[in-house]
């Protein structure tokens, strides 16, 4: 399969580009922030995403979705990133949908996701750094389980209809689909640097039925791996949009801004840095597309996909971090103002770089899998 978008994917990109730029541009995010919005995103916009068919991209056709892949989901995520659109798309329509795939729980939750009525949040991290460690306990209680523990960095966790929760069970890990309004669950919303909202969740003996188990008890590693692979690849695609958007805005500024009587983009010191940034972003983009295609290629490519996903997340973290730093620096003073948009790119990139493991985490994972 060639490593570029095919005609259908290009059409989808054009559709997503037009739709998101029109319905959820940066001004939309700024307006939500300025109104001190407490949800962190717009339910109306989420409904529109469903009407466009976006929420069903990764849901199998047999379940009423479009049955498309990570490449297509990434096309939408890149536009979300480019417009800094607050959206539950990554957690809900990508990570949660992948985790639920093939499970009995999918039947309960897919219809709401397809309809744009259900928002999911991912309760995975327990410490400040994503490290894969899970202390949360799920003890058997009656017909189901009782969950006790704490999670953090749960984007939209305070308003989510569905929480995907990783917990320790007798002989392994189990992934649970927990209703957002479950008894014993306390969500404390925290506004993050980019004005999105992530919750700290406290589970004090939250009781769930046996059918809350995604897949099999103690066999949560499979769905959790799917969730993380989809989340990492999706966050990478969104970062390509964030970094690409910052780069485009900056290069335009270099062409327009005049000092010493000439466009500052005529200075070689800035040209070389911009060209270096372009190179890093191109390489990151290729790494993301490779990971998406390998995930879509099926289970026989699982090992190659796992490596490619780590490379993609690490590389986009490096490239996008450079893009937003150069973006602010090359804008000079106005780059530091709240009135100008470039700073929003820096904030969003920081959150995405941290999500599901940062560049160092994934570089280390690559080293470990290579045996050093």
């Amino acid at each position, binding site marked *: 399969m*060639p490593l570029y978008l095919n005609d259908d994917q290009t059409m989808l990109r054009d559709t997503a580009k037009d739709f998101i730029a029109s319905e959820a541009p940066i001004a939309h995010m700024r307006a939500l922030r300025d109104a001190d919005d407490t949800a962190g995103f717009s339910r109306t916009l989420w409904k529109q995403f469903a009407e466009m068919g976006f929420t069903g991209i990764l849901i199998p056709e047999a379940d009423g979705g479009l049955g498309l892949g990570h490449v297509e989901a990434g096309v939408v995520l890149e536009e979300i990133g480019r417009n800094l659109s607050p959206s539950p798309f990554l957690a809900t329509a990508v990570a949660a949908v992948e985790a639920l795939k093939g499970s009995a729980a999918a039947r309960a939750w897919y219809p709401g996701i397809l309809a744009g009525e259900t928002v999911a949040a991912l309760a995975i991290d327990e410490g400040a750094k994503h490290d894969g460690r899970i202390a949360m306990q799920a003890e058997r209680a009656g017909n189901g389980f009782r969950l006790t523990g704490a999670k953090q960095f749960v984007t939209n966790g305070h308003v989510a209809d569905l929480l995907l929760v990783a917990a320790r069970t007798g002989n392994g890990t189990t992934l649970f689909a927990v209703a957002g309004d479950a008894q014993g669950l306390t969500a404390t919303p925290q506004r993050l640097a980019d004005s999105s909202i992530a919750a700290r969740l406290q589970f004090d003996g939250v009781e769930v039925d046996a059918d809350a188990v995604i897949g099999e008890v103690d066999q949560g590693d499979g769905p959790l791996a799917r969730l993380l692979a989809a989340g990492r690849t999706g966050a990478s695609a969104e970062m390509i949009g964030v970094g690409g958007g910052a780069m485009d805005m900056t290069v335009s500024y270099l062409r327009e801004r005049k000092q010493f009587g000439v*466009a500052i983009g*005529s200075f*070689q010191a800035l*040209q070389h840095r911009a060209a270096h940034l372009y190179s890093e972003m191109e390489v990151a983009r290729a790494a993301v597309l490779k990971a998406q295609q390998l995930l879509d290629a099926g289970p026989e490519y699982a090992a190659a996909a796992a490596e490619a996903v780590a490379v993609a997340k690490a590389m986009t973290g490096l490239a996008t971090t450079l893009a937003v730093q150069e973006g602010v620096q090359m804008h000079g003073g106005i780059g530091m103002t709240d009135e100008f948009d470039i700073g929003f790119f820096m904030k969003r990139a920081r959150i995405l770089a941290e999500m599901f493991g940062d560049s*160092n985490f994934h*570089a280390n994972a690559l*080293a470990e899998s*290579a045996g050093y």
Partner: protein
Amino acid sequence: MSEDLDQFRAETRAWLEANCPAEMRTPPKSDRETTWGGRNPEYAHPDQKVWLDRMAARGWTVPDWPSEYGGGGLSAAETKILREELKRIKARNPLNSFGISMLGPALLKYGTEAQKLEHLPKIARGEIRWCQGYSEPNAGSDLAGLQTSAEDKGDRFLVNGQKVWTSYADKADWIFCLVRTDKRVKQAGISFLLFDMASPGVSTKPILLISGNSPFCETFFDNVEVPKANLLGELNKGWDVAKYLLGHEREMISGFGLGGTGKDPLVEAARKGADPILRAQIALFQVRSKAFTAMSEKFIDELKAGKAHPAQPSMMKYYGTELNKARHELQMAAGGSDALEWESDASHQGAAARTWLRTKANSIEGGTSEIQLNIIAKRILDLPS
């Protein structure tokens, strides 16, 4: 279509299994085991010739060239499958050739039918080894300032001047050479000539480099007679050919950033126990290296489909060469004092150190990194002059 490709893959795999000698599935142990062909070919191992001849017989040294010119006549999809299958068995490149990577594409685009039929099959079979006469002592980054002249003498040109950094000029059979055919204008006074290095008046002198090796030469032309039929492209339009060819040269050099097909010596060194800081540096390097491998695949796919930006080879060249330099800095650090030995058998006569030093030329030859960044800034990012 996809069934045809599946069948092509199966047949290719079976043929490679039967025809690629076992030795050719291991990385070359030294530069001497790299196959360059030519009138006086050097084979450090007999299987090099076996492998070259078998691949050439199928046109697979140049799988996507038309078969009438010695190529395999494969489609882009088939070529990709062949490349994947070669990589799968870690096969060595059957033929390293500036004829394939640089001149061939320019001949295909600008050559007359007679020139194509004369030169391409010999390139494909590795019978003629080519070198590139571009840089001059006073024309480096400012290549179009070149002064080697070709004077019109009716049915021939008389070439006088000097080239420098001519890779393997002392081993090459023919040269593709930029010459000045009009002194009044800069780019528009350059023509592109092909001639035999055995012509009277051609001499070469190897340049000793910091690596202790001499891959480059000074090349002198003293009243060299070149038939007019050896002009590639139109008179005074050689700069177009030169730029087109440079794009392909940059693609080739960018490939240095990919590392080899065998065991990664950097990973091997790290496994033996690198200190935590070096380990982290290697791991972060591997992120970029593996991402660049994907970039190379994407670039080739886009190139074959006509979707690549015409200046994208500059990005590939810049990134690939900087990556390769970084790789060898890390390899030297990982190798410690073992890697410093310059002449011992254990060090394969200083292979690590000499390669490390050689890679420093990667970001100079074929247009410096700074020139590539200029090109990206102007032609891709549209930044003002």
